[in-house]
């Protein structure tokens, strides 16, 4: 088994200032100021606790080779954004992290993924328990349509047979998802009575209720208006204090706003992974440069 703390040269977790919507670039700038040719790396080698370590990950859908030899690490309490054109393997990548990829008929994978140093496919790892620790939020809000707001939040607790004070957990999760004030007086209303942005935050609350420490977000704001999007992004800034987040996004500015590090995927390959600041100001790979400047096709 891997040790939890490794000596690596990726970005250390960075605490950021609070801000109502997006935070100014300066906070991140100070953390990852490109003083040298290697802006992604700090001057000194630091001990960073890696939450997720992906090693030589390959994934297939029958004959389609969806991920090719992807290796990267995500330090604890940081946000990793995955960018890349459609079909580049972004979603497959995050779906491997909570073992959802293997649920697709004909899907295969090789390589290793470690969460907290522990191999996801090690003997004794229960995928259901894993998905409790590694939560996921999808592109379209998918609350249970027949359940109330309250029952949606605690659905995971009931399904997993998790005890405790469900009311307290529901309130805490809704507060964490920045939805509490908007729904506290109508917890028994149908989840479908909420707006799209509220439904998405409800889904985040539902994911948080089971106490995950990793949150995977697959284009969580792509179906939302700019205000709802800003709320989700603000939420990501808040949540990263307790969680490690991997977010797939087609919105490059969103990646630039929320992520500590950014990984660019193209045709199943990880082309470049570095501090977000570096990827958007001075990428090293021509293909990354072309993608972030809009020179594709």
């Amino acid at each position: 088994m891997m040790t939890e703390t490794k000596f690596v040269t990726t970005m250390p977790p960075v605490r950021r200032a609070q801000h109502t919507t997006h935070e100014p670039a300066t906070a991140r700038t100070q953390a990852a100021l490109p003083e040298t040719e290697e802006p992604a790396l700090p001057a000194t080698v630091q001990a960073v606790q890696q939450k997720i370590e992906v090693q030589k990950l390959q994934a297939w859908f029958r004959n389609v080779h969806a991920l090719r030899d992807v290796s990267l690490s995500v330090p604890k309490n940081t946000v990793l954004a995955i960018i890349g054109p459609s079909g580049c393997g972004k979603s497959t990548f995050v779906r491997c992290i909570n073992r959802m990829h293997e649920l697709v008929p004909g899907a295969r994978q090789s390589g290793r993924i470690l969460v907290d140093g522990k191999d996801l496919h090690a003997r004794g790892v229960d995928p259901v328990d894993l998905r409790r620790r590694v939560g996921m939020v999808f592109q379209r809000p998918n609350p249970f349509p027949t359940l109330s707001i309250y029952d949606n939040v605690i659905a995971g607790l009931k399904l997993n047979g998790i005890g405790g004070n469900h009311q307290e957990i529901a309130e805490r999760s809704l507060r964490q998802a920045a939805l509490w004030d908007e729904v506290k007086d109508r917890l028994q209303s149908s989840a479908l009575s909420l707006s799209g942005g509220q439904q998405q935050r409800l889904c985040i609350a539902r994911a948080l209720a089971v106490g995950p420490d990793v949150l995977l977000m697959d284009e969580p704001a792509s179906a939302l208006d700019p205000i709802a999007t800003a709320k989700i992004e603000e939420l990501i800034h808040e949540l990263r204090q307790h969680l490690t987040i991997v977010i797939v996004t087609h919105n490059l500015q969103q990646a630039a706003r929320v992520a500590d590090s950014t990984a660019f995927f193209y045709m199943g390959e990880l082309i470049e992974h570095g501090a977000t600041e570096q990827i958007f100001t001075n990428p090293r790979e021509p293909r990354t440069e072309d993608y972030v400047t809009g020179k594709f096709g």
Partner: protein
Amino acid sequence: MVFSKKQHTDKSFDAELDGLRARLLTLGGKVESEIAAGVKALIERDSKLAEDVIGADREVNRMEVEIDETCRRLLALRQPAASDLRFITTALKIVVDLERIGDLAVNVAERAIDLNQSPPLRPVHDLLKLAELCQKQVRAALDSFVDADAVKAELAIKDDALVDALYHTLFNELLGLMLEDSKNIRRATSLMFVAKHLERLADHATNVAEMVIFMVKGTDVRHPHSRGLA
């Protein structure tokens, strides 16, 4: 390090960036000819030409504001990244230097008008040489920008040492003239100012070249000592 020459998927963005580049080059060309005319007005004692230089600066100022607006618009509407971002932020910075170079050329022209009121002082050969070096440096910095060529930019930066050395020689030469005869003081002081303006103008060309290196390579070469990089 990447500086892609590939076209944007949205061609209209290319057109906007090309337009910005063209405006900067026009501005660069204008300040270059301002320097040449300012120095010519001094050497040939042509006050009319000096007045033209002063008049031409209004257009330079107008273009500075216009280029600023273009950059702000592109930043707001296009949200540029990577080399596009570096190009636009570089444009925002070098436009200030170019405008300042124009101002210094105007200062040279003003000194020429002043000097033309008195009989000429003994010819100061190094002044012409200094003017030529400074013009060469401005042209080299602008060329490095046009070609997005970091090597050319580095050469332009190196040339600044020659300018500085020549300026100090000239300073001592003019000081000698003042010590020789106190009647020279007023004119020699004016020429010292001219030399200082030219030397300063070359410094702005150095700034432009430094920004070109940043634009091309993404590395900031400014103030290595202050930043503990040297």
